[in-house]
């Protein structure tokens, strides 16, 4: 192993001097671990918070989704739609045959294909109400990270029961993803944005410039 490694470890050992084993020290976690919101409050808060990031949100029932998706594609001029493996085909039932569907399997799409597409449609792993965050973990219906990165519009579908109240609840649910499968995790809170010029917020920089969230809630 490198001498730098030894050097650093030795410096640390010297700096810390005599010490007792304290990796077992318990951190006091007195912050909230569980949200007290009802399911309805969670979905309402989630929508409100996602909206505040200047993303678009729509509440739909399962049955309404294909029609709403069709309307969105028409209005936004989406002709080439990227589809990750495992996306629910029922959602596409009303989209016109004239549209181009770019499937990422069996052959993965090239960067150029993705760059020239208009939009991507995915589901997600979780939503966090308090922060208005969508969480992807590369599962079925989400696909590789690049799929939700190069297209200009990200259409994301979330079911009401996927929304948790606060971040610690989401982190716990991601335990398995991180420790076992090691799949990448992406938090998305609104479209890409910058405030680098005079702190004027501009939505849409390098990532998708538009984020459209369909919330499937049976009410």
């Amino acid at each position, binding site marked *: *192993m490198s001498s*730098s*490694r030894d050097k*650093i470890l030795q*410096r*640390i050992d010297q*700096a*810390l001097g005599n010490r007792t084993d*304290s*990796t077992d*020290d318990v*951190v*006091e*976690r*007195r*912050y*909230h671990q569980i949200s007290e919101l009802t399911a309805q409050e969670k979905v309402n808060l989630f929508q409100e918070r996602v909206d505040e*990031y200047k993303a678009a949100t729509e509440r739909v029932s399962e049955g309404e989704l294909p029609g709403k998706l069709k309307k969105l594609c028409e209005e936004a001029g989406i002709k080439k739609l990227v589809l990750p493996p495992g996306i629910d085909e029922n959602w596409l039932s009303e989209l016109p045959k004239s549209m181009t569907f770019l499937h990422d399997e069996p052959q993965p799409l090239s*960067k*150029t294909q993705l*760059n020239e597409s208009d939009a991507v449609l995915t589901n997600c792993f979780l939503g*966090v109400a308090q*922060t*208005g965050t969508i969480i992807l973990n*590369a599962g079925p219906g989400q696909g*590789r*990270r*690049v799929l939700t*990165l190069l297209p200009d519009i990200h259409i994301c579908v979330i079911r009401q029961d996927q929304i948790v109240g606060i*971040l*610690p609840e989401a*982190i716990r649910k*991601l*335990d398995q993803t*991180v*420790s076992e499968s*090691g*799949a*990448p*995790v*992406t*938090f*998305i*809170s*609104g479209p*890409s*944005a*910058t*405030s*680098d*010029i*005079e*702190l*004027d917020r*501009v939505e*849409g*920089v*390098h*990532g*998708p410039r538009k984020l459209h969230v369909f919330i499937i809630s049976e009410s």
Partner: protein
Amino acid sequence: MKKGSQPTFEETAGTYIENAQLRRNIGHATKTIRDKRQLVVQELDDWEELREAGRQIKQKVMNNLDRYLLQLEKSVSKAGGVVHWAADAEDANRIITNLIKEKKGTDVVKVKSITTDEIRLNQALENEGIHALETDLAELIVQLAGDEPSHILVPAIHKNRAEIRELFKSKLNLKELSDEPADLAEAARLYLRKNFLKAKVGISGGNFAVAETGTVAVVESEGNGRMCTTLPDTLITVLGIEKIVPEWKDIEVFMQLLPRSSTAERMNPYNTFWTGTTEGDGPQKFHLVLLDNGRTNVLDDETGRQTLHCIRCSACLNVCPVYERTGGHAYHSVYPGPIGAILTPQLRGLDDRSAASLPYASSLCGACYEVCPVKINIPEVLLHLRNKVVLHQKKEGGFRQKTDPVHLAMKFLARAFSKRSRYERLQKMGRAGQWFYKKDGTISKLPGQLSKWTAIRDVKPVPEKTFREWWRDRK
């Protein structure tokens, strides 16, 4: 005492203060972010509990840093990454240069990382014929202008839209361009998109690395972080050794503390967490460079150690009345503001006179400590470092130190305060000696060091009777 190549804080602060445009820009930025921060922090009724948990987690990391580093090395390797250790900047730059050369790369894309600014990576790469393209909008502005960042979060905050428009027009060869931030961002998007698509190597810093799982986090807004950590075949991440957290669960603490303290958002637009490499998704080669570069010196000081808890949120900059007046450049370090005033001298050592001046660049108002999401007691460390500076000067300063007026005054006064008779004599001397300066019941001009006081302030003369004289007479 070795002379640092850079000026001290007090030597150039005045120049920056006089720059009215700069002061307006910085003033506007810091006020906007600090007001917004206040609102999103108030929303959380468990903010103090989160801060305390953050502090405890970081303290635990520092007390066991070697163990967590070894654990991280193991977990990253197991997940398909390669771990490198860099004792200093030179080490790190050599490792990174070699990795890029192995890939036969001449261009790399970079996501904003102060750690790589600290080791002057871009320059080191340029010397080897490799161009590192900054992809964060502000960093791109700074890079195109050949300038230095002035704020941790918004590095180009010293530039206004008109300046950026002119810069982009000339450097990106654009004929028509408005000065609307949206148009300027669009220009950067188009320019950088080409580069993202062809990049073979990406370089990033890391906000957190989880020892238990090997997961590394990049927290960002624009999507350039996602681009750099997703599109290239090879990803090189430079990580200060203090950025470790023990377990995945700790992320829930820092991902609440950081966005609210930094961009003053409930959550910033994008956070990417990757664990080694994933087949078919993102870079297939991942190198993690663990950087010391003075951090173990900081660890070596029990009071100073807490400086390593810093998660680079920049909340302390935004509340600092000194930073607000001077901006970041006066600190002559990639780490400006209150945190820079304690981190830079510890990283660089007190032989560097520029760094050694920084602990004094504070009125000790304590606003920084109040907002710090991991409760770094910055005033405490500032005072501790001032003491170290004085001790260092006493040891190394020689004749110059012995005749330094401040040093002499301090010694003289300490002696006077140690005995009542000397103290009372000093009071009388002050009253007797002031006749020369007193005019119309006020003092408007004093000599030597004190002239800095009377440059803008009058001094109230020592009155006829001290309090103790009055007390004695009264009894």
